């Protein structure tokens, strides 16, 4: 039965008056993870791998025997006999790899030190393990049959972001599919292919997976053929060299001078070229029911915290929207969207992405967006610049302290000025008080109005300059900044001291490396100024306290925003102070990386050796 009006009113009043405990969602907290132990030969995993390899070999032998039986029971053609011959040769090669000692070594763990097997199936298993497939969808295995006499099973391995696809189609796949009249039994298949089939200037035959790894990550394509204990490295490099421009927002004097583009594949290739390890996994997720935007999650599998990775993927894959444009993803996945401070780092620099990936963070690249997102971060990360590490330690340290100071000044400097001029003039030396009083003598407005007027004018100039870039923007800056500033002082509307205060504050706010932090601080500054005008330094102190408490309550993907300062974790000389590079042995503890150490305690090993001691290869 439906409620009558009286019951509805009572319920409404009850809802209004009685407090209901809000349903609190469980926030994600990044827990520490223990690194996985490397497998030892005595462990079951090793025996299992060994068994799997032997079973695969047994299946192959059985299959070959059945084929031989079938062929021989009918009237065999010379081609079919050749096929049997080829298969048996291949089995003969593979049988050597299944000797107990060799098998126990190679099957223990698929490492890059292993030699290439004569079995294509074994090679694909090793590649799958080494390149973290299928998680890492940046690498492609293209399986095919080469129609030689007899036909051969083969596979191509390449990175889709680093190769020139036209090269692969026209100079590898096309010739391979046309190699119909070539006898594969006349000699080594790889030699036949490189000398008679592949029309490419640079090819090389290798026998180990180390060379394969290096080549694939440099943009080469690798050809594996069943029955050959080797592979052919084919030159197919095709990543962007010239289309990449210099960073426009995060410029540095030294260091890398390239920036991301709008194309996802090019951006991934830029990161992969800086981090040439198969450990770098690229996982692609599609978001947006209508825009179908590709979003790549990049991480180092042996370093990144698995629960962090899971959380990042969970947040991205659970976005339900029809359109995801450039710069929008951040707001969908951050922890506190209503707080203006950024909780994810946004950078246009591939070198910055790689350095953060190496520390155990996760990078997100979105197709059509020239900015990479990096998570999790701390408040202090936003004050770091790539320049910090290209300059020497003292200079890097000085710049960092300067930036933090600029952040603090841009937030409270006008508020402190207002508080002192309104309530605490005794804090200033007498000469200074007289100077300020003299300058303000003919000004009709109180300090708060003066400061607010100047700051709003400055915001107009900034916004106008941004919307009208280039020469027009510069003109706006000159007209707005210099001419307007001079005019208001001459007209006795604003005192010179106010212009000085606002100018220092503006310069300080632009010294903060992250534009979004500058914006967030500018918004808070107005509030600080109003409170300072009401309650002086008590108000400023209260506002600072609330601001710090809010900062301490925030998290970026489960990592406390003010870490490693509060809560305190081992920081590794890269938070406020920037220590020498060779002393930064550990990765940030708050990220809970799988591999805590990134370099030995003595990384400058040469310094311990006598100059005449031969340490070179």
């Amino acid at each position: 039965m439906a409620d009558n009006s009286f019951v509805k009113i009572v319920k409404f009043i009850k809802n209004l008056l009685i407090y209901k405990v809000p349903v609190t969602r469980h926030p994600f907290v990044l827990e520490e993870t223990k690194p996985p132990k490397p497998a030892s030969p005595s462990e079951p995993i090793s025996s299992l791998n060994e068994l799997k390899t032997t079973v695969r070999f047994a299946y192959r032998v059985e299959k070959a025997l059945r084929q031989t039986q079938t062929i021989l029971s009918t009237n065999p053609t010379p081609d079919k006999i050749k096929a049997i011959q080829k298969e048996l040769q291949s089995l003969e090669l593979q049988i050597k790899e299944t000797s107990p000692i060799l098998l126990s070594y190679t099957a223990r763990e698929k490492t890059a030190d292993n030699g290439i097997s004569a079995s294509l199936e074994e090679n694909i298993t090793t590649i799958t393990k080494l390149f973290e497939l299928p998680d890492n969808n940046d690498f492609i295995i293209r399986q095919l049959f080469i129609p030689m006499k007899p036909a051969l099973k083969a596979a191509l391995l390449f990175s889709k972001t680093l190769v020139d696809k036209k090269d692969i189609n026209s100079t590898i796949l096309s010739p391979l599919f046309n190699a119909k009249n070539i006898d594969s039994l006349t000699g080594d298949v790889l030699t036949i292919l490189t000398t008679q089939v592949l029309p490419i200037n640079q090819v090389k035959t290798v026998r180990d997976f180390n060379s394969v790894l290096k080549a694939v990550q440099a943009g080469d394509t690798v050809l594996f053929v069943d029955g050959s204990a080797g592979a052919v490295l084919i030159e197919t490099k095709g990543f962007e060299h010239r289309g990449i421009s210099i960073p426009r927002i995060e410029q540095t004097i030294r260091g890398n001078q390239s920036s991301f583009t709008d194309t996802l594949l090019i951006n991934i290739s830029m990161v992969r070229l800086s981090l040439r390890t198969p450990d770098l996994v690229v996982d692609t997720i599609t978001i947006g029911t209508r825009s179908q935007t590709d979003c790549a999650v990049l991480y180092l599998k042996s370093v990144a915290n698995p629960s962090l990775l899971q959380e990042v993927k969970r947040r991205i894959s659970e976005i339900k929207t029809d359109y995801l444009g450039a710069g929008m993803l951040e707001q969908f996945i951050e922890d506190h969207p209503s707080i203006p401070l950024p909780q994810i780092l946004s950078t246009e620099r591939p070198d910055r992405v790689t350095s953060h990936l190496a520390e155990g963070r996760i990078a997100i690249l979105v197709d059509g967006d020239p900015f990479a997102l990096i998570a999790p971060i701390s408040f202090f990360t936003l004050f770091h610049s790539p320049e910090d590490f290209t300059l020497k330690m003292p200079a890097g340290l000085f710049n960092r302290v300067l930036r933090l100071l600029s952040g603090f000044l841009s937030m409270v400097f006008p508020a402190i000025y207002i508080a002192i001029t309104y309530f605490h003039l005794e804090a200033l030396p007498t000469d200074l008080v007289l100077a300020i009083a003299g300058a303000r003598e003919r000004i009709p407005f109180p300090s708060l109005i003066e400061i607010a007027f100047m700051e709003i004018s400055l915001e107009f100039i900034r916004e106008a300059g941004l919307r009208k870039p280039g020469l027009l923007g510069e003109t706006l800056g000159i007209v707005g900044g210099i001419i307007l500033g001079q005019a208001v002082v001459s007209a006795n509307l604003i005192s010179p001291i106010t212009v000085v205060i606002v100018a220092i504050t503006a310069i300080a706010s632009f010294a903060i490396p992250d534009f979004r932090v500058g914006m967030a601080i500018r918004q808070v500054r107005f509030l600080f100024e109003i409170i300072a005008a009401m309650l002086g330094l008590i108000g400023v102190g209260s506002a600072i306290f609330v601001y710090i408490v809010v900062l301490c309550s925030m998290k970026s993907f489960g990592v406390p925003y003010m870490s490693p300062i509060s809560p305190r974790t081992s920081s590794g000389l890269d938070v406020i102070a920037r220590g020498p590079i060779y002393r930064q042995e550990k990765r940030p503890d708050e990220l809970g990386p799988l591999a805590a150490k990134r370099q030995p305690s003595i990384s400058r090993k040469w310094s311990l050796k006598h100059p005449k001691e031969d340490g070179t290869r």
Partner: protein
Amino acid sequence: MNYNPGKMGVAEGTSLVLTTNFVIIFVSVWSLIIEQAATSAWLIPPIAALAFAVMLMLLLSVMKHIPGDLLEVTASLLGNQAAKLFTVYFIITFYVYGILLLRQFSENTLITAIPTIDITTICAWFALIAVVVSYIGIEPIARAAYIIIPFLIIGIFLLLLLLHDRFNLYNLAPWLGVDISVLLTTGMKEASLYHSFFLIPLLAASFQNRRTLRITALLGIALSTLIRTITIFAYTGIFGVAVGKEKILPFFELSRLVFISRFIQRVETFFIIFWAIFGLAAIAISLYMTAYLLARLFNLPSLRPLLLPLALVAVQLSLLPADVATTIEYSQLAQHFELFGIFAIPAILFIANLLKGNEKSHVQ
């Protein structure tokens, strides 16, 4: 219940207790101690700390064997009614402490910073900020305090360094002091200054483990005592007993003495920011603890709705004393009430634990 904060470590715990315990250096405590112990005033903090540390360690030794926070331990040793009684006791101590701080800091604001403002306005402002930060949670308050405390300690030591030329060792002559029995009695009485350390066993569930509790308690007591001893020592040495006991705001008076040159002088204004922050933090922690204990007492699902009404009532109550001198008198009265908790509660629980232990061993 959703109000138990996460896992706090030594840093957060120490910051919490230091903030609530340390903040009284900005009010009249130094003068009161000097009034009682004259030139030996600087010995009071170590004596008080020792007395309190013994009782706290007794309590923590009981908690080592029984899981849960102080109230749960009380419930398992003495029953639910005793636990409720203790909860009421702690609600009163924390709330009264918060109210008295609110009034004293509001008076400080009037005296030192904004003489033109109405006391009600400034009281309401402090209460409002306390509500906002308590609403965010105790863990962020502790973390914020951990960031700010080093600046305060550096500031205090810098201040003392700048005043070194005004220090007179004769102001500390022992023969101008009190005899040992007075010293010890006063020291024991001043153990009440450490009552805020009870928030460690009360929030035990929010700390990482029992070891964290013990380290936090010891580190907090040691740091707090060290800073207090040094500052009272310096204050007595600079002002002497006769002048020192007359000051209502000893720290403010001390900072007013700084004069290095015409340009570096009157630094007291810049300390306003520090004492405002610490005063607010201490009031917020007291408010949070009151709401937390009330929520525990009545088994409420959340403490947040209690914050605003508690703050409103606190503002009204803080305005009851006629002036700052009456507020200081009330503070001294509150000390007696706090002393009961400091000595009686750990002793009761310790004895109960011993008796229960004996009972168990008999049963076995």
